[in-house]
């Protein structure tokens, strides 16, 4: 009997491994596609059938970070020889890098990328911070109409956010918040806060209130007890919530597209805007997208242990 069960268990285990592998491949396929396109020579990007083996090059990244114009005639061989290696790649493509005097003119991509970082980080920190305090309040104090209030907070997530995009746009224009970092940050906080409150409430409930009470009796104020005892215990929850909030803010496209156009524009609406007219430069777009994936991937990777425990909700206690 035991042998039979063991072999069927082994079989099940194998099936599970295969399923995980298949799922992983499916999820990784678009990422592979983006990554490989980002390193392809321009003419191979749209080849049919797709090229799998090629000599990778960083030219798309050079194009991504520089302002260029199409050249009417071929480049002077002397100028070409004097140019640094990366500029030669641009000349090879029949373009030249725009310069003011000796300084290379950068494209808008670094600015947009920085905008994304500012908006995502600030909105995540604030949404998680406010969510943590709010959740603590809901978890520890008797609040009149607590369930209703929590439901009300959640109800902000009950319609697709795009529904309010037009009124939001009009209001933002009226108060001068459109195309500003602070405008987007407020929007993303509003969007993430309900999620953050609910998730953190679950984590706070898991932390025995005896810890703080012991600290209170030991002579600490509630605030001190919160920072010394509760916050370190909630670290896992905070990390998990932060990852989710960061991903949402980082990837948000619709509002960023509507609310920003220059100064505060984030990377998601910027990258496709580079498709432009005529023949789209897929490799440059792929390079931009590839770089854009990195922060969120790194952030998630660093917090992956917390994240795993976070999504399984409350493995804080032994």
């Amino acid at each position, binding site marked *: 009997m035991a042998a039979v069960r063991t072999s069927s268990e082994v079989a099940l285990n194998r099936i599970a491994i295969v399923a995980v592998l298949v799922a992983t491949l499916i999820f990784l396929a678009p990422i592979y596609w983006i990554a490989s396109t980002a390193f392809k020579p321009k003419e191979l990007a749209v080849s049919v059938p797709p090229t799998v083996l090629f000599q990778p090059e960083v030219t798309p990244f050079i194009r991504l970070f520089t302002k260029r114009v199409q050249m009417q005639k071929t480049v002077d061989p002397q100028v070409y020889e004097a140019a640094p290696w990366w500029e030669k790649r641009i000349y090879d493509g029949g373009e030249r890098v725009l310069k003011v005097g000796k300084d290379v003119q950068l494209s808008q991509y670094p600015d947009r990328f920085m905008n994304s970082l500012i908006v995502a980080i600030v909105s995540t920190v604030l949404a998680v911070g406010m969510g943590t305090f709010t959740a603590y309040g809901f978890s520890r104090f008797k609040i009149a109409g607590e369930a209703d209030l929590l439901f009300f907070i959640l109800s902000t997530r009950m319609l697709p956010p795009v529904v309010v995009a037009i009124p939001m746009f009009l209001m933002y224009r009226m108060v001068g918040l459109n195309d500003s970092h602070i405008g987007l940050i407020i929007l993303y906080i509003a969007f993430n806060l309900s999620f953050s409150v609910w998730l953190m409430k679950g984590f706070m409930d898991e932390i025995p209130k005896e810890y703080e009470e012991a600290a209170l*009796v030991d002579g600490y104020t509630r605030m001190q007890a919160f920072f010394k005892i509760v916050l370190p215990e909630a670290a896992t929850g905070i990390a998990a919530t932060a990852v989710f909030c960061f991903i949402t803010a980082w990837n948000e496209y619709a509002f960023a597209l509507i609310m920003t156009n220059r100064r505060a524009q984030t990377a998601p609406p910027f990258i496709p805007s580079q498709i432009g007219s005529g023949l789209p430069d897929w490799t440059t777009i792929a390079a931009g997208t590839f770089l854009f994936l990195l922060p969120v991937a790194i952030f998630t990777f660093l917090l992956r242990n917390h994240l795993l425990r976070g999504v399984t909700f409350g493995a804080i206690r032994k």
Partner: protein
Amino acid sequence: MAHIELKNVTKKFGSHTALTGLNLDIADGEFFVLLGETGAGKTTTLRLIAGLEKPTEGQVFIDGVDVADWGAAERDVALVLQQYSLYPRYTVRENLEFPLKPKIRRLPDAEIKDRVARAARTLRIEHLLDRKTDRLSGGEMQRVSIGRAIVRKPRVFLMDEPLSALDAKLREALRTELKNLQMQLGATFLFVTHDQIEAMSMGDKVGVLNHGRIVQTGTPHEIYNNPRDTYVASFVGSPPMNLIDGRLVENRAVMANFELPLSGGAARTGGATDGRPLVFGIRPEDVYLESGAPVEARVHDVENHGVEKIVTLRVGDAMLRATVPARTAVEIEQPVRFAWNSDKMVMFDKGSGVSLRHTG
């Protein structure tokens, strides 16, 4: 060290009343045990004294001062809980130092070091000081917990079932240790438990709590031998006191299935008038088996406890337990004769359940 007094304290949680008109007086340096079943309001009483709850009505005094407006931090009490009282991310040393470091009564570093060392020595946890608390056994954790209370030299120690989560052997060992510690420190202890053996063996005084009311306060001896009502009689003692309905007829205790003569002492108890419906209470150890005894019964059950046997006797449909020496040979369904020491018998009013000795 402090004197604790609760005056007429009522505590309600919404529609649920946890404590009703509670009066409690704990003398300075006393080991007071609050005994009651789960949900009797023991923990609520502790939390009221600690300042973690506010009374709905009534007052709490510490050393004669009404502490209504004092927060938990200002009351200078120490609390030991059944579990979860250690800070999980800290080492044992950090846990012991934590109560000495709040802003309102931060001690100098040398003093902190000294006190931690002394507490660790007292509780024999010196070898654990640098260990994280999640790597401790239950007994070690509870020692550290107690250590966290004693480093403070608080005015009063509040202990909420600190031994309940431990296994029997450890519980017994720590019980003695705690009692010794209290005598060493000369501190006021309020110890909450549902375990009547703990209460009896540790308390200078015991308060029995039932449904949010103090039923009886007294020394363990008083509580055991002279219970105020049938609740205390049946709650304290293992096995509990035998309680049998009956009435008094001409100096005899007459019950449904048997009767026994009363000796002078019991007969003279005030209010013990003929015919009044009563409940007769007798401790199992005051019931004895003897060949010449007046009542015949059958052995219903025998529990062997090593030094003694607990024999359940059956008379008609009445059951009665007797504690007899282990060497007494009894077999199930064997006919035996028994009597009891009627000087030790307690008579309770049938209606109110209150002992006649207490109503007078």
